[in-house]
């Protein structure tokens, strides 16, 4: 297949490249653009961050988790392309020098690209923008000083110009079974090639290549299926397409369910959220995906499509067993929907580190209380079983009961019946089970108006 994109303002057309070549390897090994660094090759350190612009705007992404076909029709800017045409430094670059934001310098190009992108987008929530860039030398303080120093400086003309470039739509001849342009084309292609690996944001599949060293024979890139990127919010329903990325999802969800929005903030870094899709997070069936528990607690419905056949099922029913989902050959996740509802959802993510960490426990609580009595309870957990799973016994112990500490205590005792978690490097089984219990107490306290999170304490 032929791939066309802009690299630092110049058009590049590639043909004959392996579709699972990562942008990072291509930049470093084929273009000798070695400013973009490999720190971990799994999207956790941000040293390979680049700015990718399309008609939806500019975002920072990890080059190690991007396959070249995902970039078709986009504009890429690397650290080598951030300075002006006459070599004048971007304000971010100058501020990083002035404020001593680099020591060993290895993470610096990634930081610069995240900061340039944030600056371009007017984002000032620096801790959020930089959560996916690890620095081992500076302790981050001088980097934040640099980011703050440029907040109100204008975007340099050369970057603004780049951001305004309207990339030509992928030419028709690029249209192959491997890069469908709509969900209809995807449905047809996937039925014909049910063995193919679907690649949406590649934040997981790329690891099969970079860490698993697998050669993927048949791949279908979903990036062109723009109709799967739609978010529809009506008076009674929310419907999210499978290709909605987690930054878009966060923006849509936060006003409706702020706790879910905050969980998505912590779900992963800016770069990973910018690539990761809702459909991918569900379809890979991981027991530690963060969206499924929250969506199950919201009573979400999963919409699947195989060829021209569509079906829907409660999301929790999709997860059959570890590594096994209710998905037929050639069938793909099309969307998720849930009813508009008063917000009583709270999502609690326990992990070793607040940002950019996989959950040890993810608890999602959605309890409806009418006149002091529990009339509805949907509670779901990740990290507690082989699949995302509802706490059915806990829910049953709450239903119909007065919403009181005694009821909460009684329900806490039921967790043993719902979960037998395991111990691993993230947490012990005991911690998982006991904190799951505790999170119900936290939920009670939070609905009671108490301060329950250390993140809320500010001096």
């Amino acid at each position, binding site marked *: 297949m032929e791939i066309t994109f802009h690299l630092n303002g110049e058009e590049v057309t590639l043909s004959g490249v392996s579709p699972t070549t990562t942008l990072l390897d291509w930049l470093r090994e084929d273009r000798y653009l070695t*400013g973009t660094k490999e720190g971990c090759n799994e999207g956790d350190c941000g040293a390979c961050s680049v700015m990718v612009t399309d008609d939806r705007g500019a975002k920072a992404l990890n080059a190690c988790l991007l396959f070249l076909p995902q970039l078709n029709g986009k504009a890429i800017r690397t650290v080598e392309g951030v300075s002006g045409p006459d070599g004048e430094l971007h304000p971010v670059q100058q501020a990083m020098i002035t404020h001593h934001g*680099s020591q060993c310098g290895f993470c610096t190009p990634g930081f610069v690209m995240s900061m340039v992108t944030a600056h371009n987008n007017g984002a000032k929530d620096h*801790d959020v923008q930089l959560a996916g860039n690890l620095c081992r030398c500076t*302790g981050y303080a001088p980097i934040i000083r640099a980011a703050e120093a440029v907040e109100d400086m204008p975007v340099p003309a050369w970057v603004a110009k780049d951001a305004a470039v309207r990339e030509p739509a992928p030419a028709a001849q690029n249209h192959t079974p491997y890069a469908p342009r709509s969900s209809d084309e995807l449905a047809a292609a996937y039925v014909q090639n049910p063995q193919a690996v679907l690649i949406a944001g590649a934040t997981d599949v790329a690891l099969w290549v970079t860490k698993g060293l697998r050669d993927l024979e048949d791949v279908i890139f979903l990036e062109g299926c723009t109709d799967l990127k739609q978010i529809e919010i009506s008076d009674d329903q929310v419907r999210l397409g499978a290709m909605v990325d987690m930054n878009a999802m966060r923006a849509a969800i936060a006003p409706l369910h702020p706790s879910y929005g905050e969980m998505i903030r912590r779900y992963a870094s800016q770069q990973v959220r910018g690539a990761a899709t809702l459909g991918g997070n569900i379809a890979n069936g991981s027991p530690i995906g963060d969206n499924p528990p929250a969506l199950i607690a919201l009573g979400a419905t999963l919409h699947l499509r195989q060829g021209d056949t569509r079906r829907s099922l409660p999301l929790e029913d999709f997860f059959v067993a570890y590594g096994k989902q209710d998905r037929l050959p050639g069938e793909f996740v099309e969307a998720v929907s849930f009813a508009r509802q008063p917000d009583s959802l709270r999502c609690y993510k326990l992990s*070793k580190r607040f940002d950019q960490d996989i959950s040890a426990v993810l608890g999602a609580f959605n309890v409806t209380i009418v006149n002091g009595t529990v009339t509805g309870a949907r509670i779901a957990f990740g990290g507690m079983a082989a699949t995302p799973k509802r706490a059915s016994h806990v829910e049953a112990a709450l239903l119909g009961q007065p919403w009181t500490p005694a009821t909460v205590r009684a329900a806490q005792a039921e967790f043993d019946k719902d979960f037998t978690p395991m111990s691993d490097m993230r947490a012990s089984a005991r911690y998982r089970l006991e904190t799951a219990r505790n999170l119900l107490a936290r939920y009670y306290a939070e609905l009671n108006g108490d301060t329950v999170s250390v993140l809320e304490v500010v*001096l």
Partner: protein
Amino acid sequence: MSILSKTGPVAKPLPHDAAKLHVTGAARYVDDIPMPAGCLHLAFGISTIAKGRITAMDLDAVRASDGVVLVLVAQDLPFSNDVSPAAHDEPLLSDGRVHYVGQPLFLVVASSHRAARVAARKGQIEYAQETPILTVDQALAADSRFEDGPRIYNKGDAAAAIAAAPHLVEGVMELGGQEHFYLEGQAALALPQEGGDMLVTSSTQHPTEIQHKVAEAIGLPMHAVRVEIRRMGGGFGGKESQGNALAVSCAIAARATGKPCKMRYDRDDDMVITGKRHDFRISYRAGFGDDGALSGVEFTHLVRCGWAQDLSLPVADRAMLHADNAYAIPAIRIESHRLKTNTQSATAYRGFGGPQGMVGIERVMDHIAHDLGLDPVSVRQVNYYDAPETAKLAADQGGAAPRPAASPRSSSGKKKDNTTPYGMEVSDFELHGMTARLLETSDYQARRAEITAWNKTQDQLKRGIGFSPVKFGISFTLTHLNQAGALVHVYQDGSIHLNHGGTEMGQGLFQKVAQVAASRFGVGMELVKITATDTAKVPNTSATAASSGTDLNGMAVKAACDTIRDRMATFLAQHHQCSVASVRFEDGRVIAGADEMTFEQAAMLCYQGRISLSATGFYKTPKVEWDRIKGQGRPFFYFAYGASVTEVVVDRLSGENRILRSDILHDAGVSLNPHLDIGQVEGGYVQGVGWLTTEELVWDGNGRLSTHAPSTYKIPACSDRPDVFNVALWDGQNREDSIYRSKAVGEPPFMLGISAYLALSHAVSAYGEAYPALDAPATAEQLWSAIRRVRDGV
């Protein structure tokens, strides 16, 4: 700034010399260097068991894999099969024995990095497995150790002192290791030269050791091997010895193929293969009086060293040497067991054992303060070493009068025995004044009271505040390493070429030393060219380690510059008919009698006058003398000091916690570059906090490291830094004659992070009566567990 007013760029807060290269992506690291065509790439096939013997190794599939050029096993190596720094106990490739999961067994040479990695996984290895020794308990039971028995340092009769004391605390603490997580993984490349010579570029803190090990491996003298390194993407001790295997592999492969060879570890390989900070179990007993003044302390260190000795002995020694931290302890016994286990060979890591030793005594102080119900700061102050009675300072080499010590006299009444457990007089103690200043600027007392009041209103969340001081010994404890060389050229156009044996890993060494050079010639920084560390320019260098880089190399460069400057002055004095002493180098100009010229003109004049404008410089640290077996002497030239106050908040239900505010006052002497030094303090603190909080290394029951990537091993991220982060440098100066009276600043700030551990302990103690007895790292789970113990007794 009297002593600095005529010294040019020294003490100026200039940016890192490579800052512009960093931010534009132009700074080159080993993997960024353009390679000649035909470059080959290497990867190791590694063991999957922790202990045993290889019974069969079928590498046919490896050899048949795409792009593979050569596969080597131990028997194929032409000369030495050893990459250990000293003990000759680390085969590059397994000699048939397997000692840990991740040990290199065979070496793949292939056409690409990926091809080598793919092939390396195709080895079919059969093992006769043995039961591995993974824990310190297993190692003790099996008497699996380095050295014959424990090292023991004694001062007085600790047991008797403890027995006679009114109060006693005792406890055991588990203290985890730490992955370096330098952002640039290990990397090396080798370019074969004529006659079998080898040019090696290695991401190493220790070029001379790379040169030595490569020479051994290719059977040539050291003169046949040249090692070069411009910069590393972080080191932190992890590139002191751990780069040997890659550089040696590249050289052997380059020798075998005649092609340039490059090797870099994938991050997971890096974490699985290389050593980390030593984890410790520290047991303590301490006897003390009503005010918390110590009578005697006993420590036992169980040090998990991994499979090879590497640097474990000096690391464990340094832990013992910091078991006193800032406290004059009348009687102390420190017993240190260096245990050999079937895990990665633990290695150098910022602080080099000092942090572990220091955590031990800070834990004791915390425990005492808790049991006595005293402010932990007062317990520390009562135990502090005495401040020097007077500051008798030798005249600075610049001739100006030194500043008076800013530290007031200790408030404690009687004079203490101010010697360390190893018999060194503490004659430069700064912490009385520093502590008073920090308590004031951080508003410690008022905040502690406010926290106590706040905690009473909270059930789930509690805040805590912790204070910790640092006294860190500066010098290599292996005395002969305290030497350095430099090579300086002044060209006829006045530009200066600077080279020394130190390596740049981000700490700003090159800039600080260049500031010294510019100052000696009285010129601007633009005249000084900083060049890559190169064993062909400066030989027999020590590792850039032990925080000594600037102290040693700055002095060596100063000596070289002064040699050239003196030659120039002598010539110019003769030429201009004035006294040598009257020739001055300042502000880019040279003044000789009535004449004045630019430095460039002076250089040209000297060249035309046939004056040698190139010189080497050499420095060896004075006064140090140390007997590690007896545990007596003066291992350190001086001490660097620091103090920190950290405030945290903890959640009872989950153990989640975060830092709210940190205040630090650090002693860099007369800082050569205050901004670079503050950068070391900020970064060191956050790295130290990471060690004691989120950075947890987990091995499974088979000795396999479960946390081998940043997805599972969590170093601090951006939002983990303190919300409020106040860092200041102490306005003091080195009482010893160091380079411009500055102090080393690489390692000491790391230990300021201990205050976060203490703050967490304080917060947990608010949930109940019992002492929290936190292990480290104090992860959320560890805190949750401690809160249950304290609050619920479970």
